[in-house]
């Protein structure tokens, strides 16, 4: 789960890092009134990269500019609900600092760069030698000597080296205590006195560890749509798209393969929804979410083991009975209990298929108004 900049900076500040003075504005008035001096920075709190290029982060020199920019941002197509209004920080240089998990070693991995504001993935391709990497054992934690080695490895000296090492130790605390996938400061400002201030903040928390971070319960604004938000509350994996074929599949890999096949066949996916694993009894709720997109067809594909075909089929029959979908339903249900499953689907008026690619082709045909 990705969190907003303001949430990341709250975590950073709680860990002792310096962040710019700020006010979280939900209305242009607050962006203007905040006691932060001039100029100030207006940063739209949306979960997408490249906010600067998209004009979602702007400098305001005075009250008039702040008001007009804030008004523009709140009215933009990007669904800006909050603006983080920050004092403008005078800095001497910018750095990049991040911590993530390295799946190969099973350790933490510090990434740092003496150039801030970079796209680290871009840099990793074009100039990997500019990136300082430091593996960190998750059990030992980041040791002070490792933090120093990163700071000096960036070519820093004096007070700046010390404050970057200190900042990194604090970022490590945030990373570990938040079960982060990624904790990133980009840019990290270095001021004239060598002190470090987090200019931006990214914090992405492992969904599997969210139970340890209930206070951070993600809100509606962390999701692409109301349906996606509701699916998340049900624990049903869901992605919102804007096509007309609603996927209601079981198994992450299979659902992804079906998504590809629909695209190959020239169809357009309305949503990715996976009701396998622990959710295989939730067919009714799953179909309700799918129908919320008013799709032209619902495509059901499963090939399950524990997620038994017969149980899923019973749920689908129940869903049809209860929700009375107006659009056609294409079902291809295989796996444990598949004979009973097919019988159940037939009884519910469906024509069960047993070949995934055939089912996909049929769904695409139907979405174009074609016949079965």
């Amino acid at each position, binding site marked *: 789960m990705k969190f907003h900049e303001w949430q990341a900076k709250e975590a950073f500040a709680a860990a002792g890092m310096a962040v710019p003075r700020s006010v979280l504005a939900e209305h242009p008035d607050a962006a203007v009134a905040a006691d932060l001096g001039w100029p100030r920075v207006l940063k739209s709190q949306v979960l997408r*990269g490249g906010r600067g290029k998209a004009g979602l982060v702007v400098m305001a020199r005075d009250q008039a500019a702040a008001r007009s920019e804030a008004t523009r941002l709140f009215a933009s197509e990007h669904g800006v609900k909050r603006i983080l209004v920050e004092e403008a920080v005078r800095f001497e240089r910018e750095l990049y600092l991040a911590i993530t*998990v*390295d*799946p*190969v*070693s*099973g*350790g*933490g991995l510090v990434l740092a760069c003496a150039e801030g504001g970079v*796209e*680290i*993935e*871009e840099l*990793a*391709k074009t100039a990997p030698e500019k990136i300082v990497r430091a593996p960190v*054992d*998750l*059990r030992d934690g980041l040791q002070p000597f490792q933090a120093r080695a990163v700071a000096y490895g960036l070519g820093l000296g004096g007070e700046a080296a010390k404050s970057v090492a200190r900042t990194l130790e604090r970022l490590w605390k945030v990373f*570990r205590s938040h*079960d982060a*996938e990624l904790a990133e400061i980009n840019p990290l400002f270095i001021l004239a006195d060598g002190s470090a201030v987090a200019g931006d903040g990214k914090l992405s928390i*492992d*969904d*599997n*560890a969210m*139970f*340890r971070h209930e206070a951070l319960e993600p809100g509606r604004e962390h999701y692409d749509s109301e349906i996606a938000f509701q699916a998340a509350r049900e624990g049903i*994996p869901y*992605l919102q798209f804007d096509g007309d074929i609603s996927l209601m*599949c*079981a*198994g*992450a*890999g*299979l*659902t*992804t*393969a079906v*998504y*590809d*096949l629909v*695209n*190959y066949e020239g169809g357009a996916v309305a949503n*990715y929804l*996976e009701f*396998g*694993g*622990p959710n295989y009894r939730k067919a009714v709720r799953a179909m309700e979410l799918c129908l919320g997109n008013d799709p032209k067809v619902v495509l059901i594909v*499963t*090939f*399950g*083991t*524990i*997620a038994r075909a017969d149980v899923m089929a019973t749920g689908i029959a129940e869903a049809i009975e209860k929700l009375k979908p107006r659009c056609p339903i294409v079902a291809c249900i*295989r*796996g*444990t209990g*598949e004979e009973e499953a097919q019988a159940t689907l037939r009884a519910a008026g469906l024509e069960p298929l047993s070949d*995934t*690619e055939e089912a996909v082709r049929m769904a695409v045909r139907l979405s174009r108004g074609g016949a079965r």
Partner: protein
Amino acid sequence: MSIFIDRSTRVVVQGITGSEGVFWTRHMIDLGSSVVSGVTPGKEGQSVEGVPVFHTVRNAVAATGADAAMIFVPPRMAMDAVMEAMDAGIRKIVTVADGIPLHEAAIIRARALELGARVVGGNTSGVINPGFAMMGMFPYWIERVYKPGRIGVMTRSGSLTNEVTAMVVRGGYGVSSLIGVGGDPVPGSRFAEYLPDFQADPDTDAVVVIGELGGTMEEEVAAALRAGTFRKPLVAFIGGRTAPEGRRMGHAGAITSGGSGSALDKARALESAGALVADRPSAVGELLRKALGR
């Protein structure tokens, strides 16, 4: 010969008295696996399907000589269960738990590397040698999928494995050993680590890799092909070729980041290393025929 397990592997089932534990213990035994003991704290002295239950893995190992651990415990307790197995000297471990916290999965991986242990999973169906033995939960009774044969399979997925393996069988082949490394971002062991075993296995003629977007496991396989450490035919299917950048497709590990880890890049890396890459499951059988010349 077989990969990871055979009928002589002495399996202890952690979490054996839970409903999944009971159900799959019966099936593992039915297929022919040697399940020698189970572990559920507080239930030493009981038995499940005739298998004696112990409080701890150490007790189970001491009493029954178990040398492999099949773990059916919830994701929040998975790290502890894996650590307990490793602490008891076990070096082959399968954990099916779906939802192991990322940092804990990483610690499992780091500890396994230190000890030279192999941990399969989490978020996997496990390991199966169709017709012989399994540690995990596969519908081996579906013959059009789990037919014994000479094709090795490695996968990050569950349902998709059924889908693709059915295509292997439809193509006229069967499966020698199937390893599900799991769909998590930090699996306990990685595709490339099994290639030497498949290379050495006289019962495997070719390997099918079922990959997907995200991570670098498929690229590591490509590197092994390029390095010549794996020299048998390799066919791959990579899911998520049309997936949008930066969005997670179901599996926690299935996400591209910053232009790396895309399914297309993986397919290209594998192809340029000499693998045959199927663009859809149904193409797998044909590519195997092409690769094997029969």
